[in-house]
């Protein structure tokens, strides 16, 4: 039997399973790239306004840390893609990595692949089919993004580089997925590992781009995300850094295949250790179980937030001086908020953290959905655990975990920025700024809970809402979306602490909405069938 036998059948299966996700994701990426570019072009009709905007971006630590510098201030193309380019290469990389895990390790873990494995499926076939899907999706996204950019009137060379970079980062993401899928026996762990690797490389270049005077700019070369930036679309159009992406992908895929052909079915490189013969004391209630299921993820998030908080706090001192002109302020506003004063910098960074915390919160509470689908809800609900206690346990871990992460990031950012500012109570101020994010986060978690309560598969409403809110927040103003729609995003109502007066009314009504959503979710969950 050839080691590739069955690839075609697996490929067809994968495409069928992804027939909705794949096109929707591609349309969103391509649509966002093209529309935000054309909106930027309309916004900056002349060279003077572009230079002004680029200068703002290149001096603001917060935008440098998040999206990197603009290498040619006169280039409208470079300005058009400085934000959406970074976001789409990251989205592609994470998406492709998770897609590879989804069609390899996840299938193996659930035993579905075994069902097929007994038929004619070669050792390399599952990974090959998964890579074809993920690489195909990346190339499609890159091709159409490039065409879309070119269609808005931007230069052909830059559009080609940008499109190739999107495709290339997708391919690198897929390659990370191919290796991670061989390392652990759990799909959740593998997806987390690949996503974590991409996040680390993003963080490396963030440090490189935001350190004062470019002292650490060499760090950028250690990161594939940095290579994307070095391709400099519309600002030099260098193709050779993209070759580095291709080379890295080839090496990683080769490693992935080598591991895949050497390990046992359902085995892994990192072997499972034996555990306790009896359960620890805390593991005797639904809450104990919910905590146990989230524990590892929580500590990884906590460590990451402690680091990021310290980094952000440390950067506060290098925030550029305030530029006082009406047009500048207008530009900053269109970039997503004021970004100059130390307070404003912290406020922007913390509102960014709020989205990351929401990701933790949503996946913690929607673990209930995975439990139900994985037939592990049934034995718990057949015990003396009521439905309210069962779902409530996941919600408690989600909410308490979210608050804890905000406290961690607020404390570390506060401590690290204390030296850069004159406030004696800086830690309290930054912790306050972090905690004020709670209501908006809880609203999004509430949407997930309400969806799951009504019907299990509607739990994804939480993820859909988060995506829409983030896109509205980042690109809503640029795309001239009416204020009424922008107001739907709870994050837009969060008081921008520190440095401004705390207004209680949005906090109160957002909390009320969150509680209402929780109640809806629980009430509906009590009434429905468990699948």
């Amino acid at each position, binding site marked *: 039997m050839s080691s590739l036998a069955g690839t075609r059948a697996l490929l067809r299966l994968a495409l069928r399973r992804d027939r909705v996700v794949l096109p929707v994701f591609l349309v969103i990426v391509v649509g966002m790239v093209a529309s935000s570019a054309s909106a930027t072009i309309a916004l900056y009709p002349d060279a003077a306004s572009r230079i002004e905007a680029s200068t703002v971006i290149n001096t603001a630590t917060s935008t440098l840390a998040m999206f990197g510098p603009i290498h040619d201030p006169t280039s409208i193309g470079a300005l058009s893609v400085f934000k959406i380019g970074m976001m789409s290469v990251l989205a592609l990389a994470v998406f492709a990595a998770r897609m590879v895990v989804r069609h390899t390790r996840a299938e193996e873990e659930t035993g579905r692949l075994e069902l097929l494995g007994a038929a004619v499926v070669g050792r390399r076939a599952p990974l090959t089919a998964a890579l074809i899907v993920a690489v195909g999706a990346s190339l499609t996204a890159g091709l159409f993004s490039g065409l879309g950019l070119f269609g808005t009137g931007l230069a052909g060379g830059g559009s080609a580089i940008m499109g190739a970079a999107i495709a290339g980062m997708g391919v690198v993401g897929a390659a990370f997925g191919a290796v991670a899928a061989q390392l652990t026996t759990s799909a959740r762990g593998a997806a987390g590992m690949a996503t974590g690797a991409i996040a680390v490389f993003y963080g490396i270049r963030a440090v490189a781009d935001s350190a004062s005077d470019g002292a650490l700019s060499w760090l950028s070369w250690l990161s594939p995300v940095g290579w994307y930036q070095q391709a400099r679309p519309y600002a030099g159009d260098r193709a050779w850094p993209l070759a580095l992406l291709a080379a890295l992908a080839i090496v990683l895929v080769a490693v992935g295949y080598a591991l895949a052909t050497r390990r046992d079915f359902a085995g892994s490189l990192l072997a499972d250790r034996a555990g306790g013969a009896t*359960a620890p004391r805390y593991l*005797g209630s639904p809450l104990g179980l919910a905590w146990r299921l989230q524990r590892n993820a929580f500590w990884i998030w906590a460590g990451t937030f402690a680091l990021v908080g310290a980094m952000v706090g440390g950067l506060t001192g290098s925030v550029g001086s305030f530029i006082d002109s009406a047009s500048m302020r207008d530009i900053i506003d269109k970039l997503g908020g004021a970004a100059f004063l130390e307070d404003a910098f912290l406020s922007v960074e913390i509102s960014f953290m709020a989205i990351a915390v929401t990701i933790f919160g949503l996946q913690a509470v929607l673990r209930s959905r995975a439990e139900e689908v994985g037939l592990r809800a049934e*034995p718990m609900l057949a015990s003396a655990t009521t*439905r309210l206690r069962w779902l409530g346990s996941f919600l408690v871990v989600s909410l308490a975990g979210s608050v804890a992460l905000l406290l961690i990031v607020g404390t570390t950012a506060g401590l690290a920025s204390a030296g850069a500012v004159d406030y004696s109570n800086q830690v309290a101020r930054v912790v306050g700024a972090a905690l004020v994010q709670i209501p908006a986060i809880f609203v999004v978690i509430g949407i997930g809970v309400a969806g799951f309560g009504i019907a299990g598969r509607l739990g994804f409403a939480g993820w859909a809402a988060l995506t829409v809110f983030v896109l509205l927040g980042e690109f809503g103003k640029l795309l001239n979306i009416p204020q009424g729609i922008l107001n739907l995003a709870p994050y837009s109502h969060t008081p921008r602490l520190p440095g401004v007066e705390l207004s209680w009314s949005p906090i109160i009504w957002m909390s009320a909405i969150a509680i209402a959503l929780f109640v809806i979710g629980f009430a509906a969950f009590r009434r429905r069938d468990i699948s």
Partner: protein
Amino acid sequence: MTAAIEIENLVKTFGRTRALDGLDLTVDVGEVHGLLGPNGAGKSTTIRVLLGLLRTDSGSARLLGGDPWRDVEELHRRLAYVPGEVMLWPNLTGGEVIDLMGRVRGGLDSKRRADLLERFELDPTKKSRAYSKGNRQKVALVAALASDVELLLLDEPTAGLDPLMDAVFRDSVHEFRDRGRTIFLSSHILAEVEALADRVSIIRDGKRVDSGSLAQMRHLARVAITADIARGADAIKKLKGVHEFRTQGERVEFQVDPGDLSGALAALAKAGATSLTSHPPTLEEIFLRHYSDESAPVAS
């Protein structure tokens, strides 16, 4: 004798399919009751209704004197459940799962836990993801059998066990019953129910078609006879109460209604039988009668 489970005229629909279509069922306290039916007959649906996981459309279900939908907490303290397909938390060990399930149910007998682990030859320190299907099933069975409950609900409990473990399971179930507890198990494996159950209910398309002890069921069914005879096969074939008569050289095979057995035996004697085997109908044969479409439901 009080009933552990009382189901009357129960209806549960999923969209257009009627999974339960007026089901009646009674399980007495202290018996092992088997729910027998082919795939899709409504066995799992019945159990999931009893666990309060599904809402019913009409009819009534009582469990241990309570309402399975409303009195979840109170009732579930008094029962243990083993699903047909046991899925465990991949990064918990088997021992951790057993303790967790025991604690959320309201208690585990640690002596019995140790004893069952040994008898089922289960390593409790292994992570659940490393267990085979049979071992996952053992984890759930140990957790259920070691807990201090009045009622066990088992959905196709031995699907993944090997014959040796099957015997261990059988003994454990009977010990459980001998302590005055009740066991309700579903199965489509006749031998399993035959070996375990005191009473059986047979369901088809969401309705009960028969219920009773195995002795009562056999009473309803014919006796199967195989004999070698020297002559007179035709005479036997024409006897009253003889069905499905076949000859193969000197060998005859037929079924006979219990009331006409003595007549058939007399005829065999006259025919100069040189060998004779008879056996009670297996559940397979009862099953076939109830599930072949032309047979009318028989009440016991």
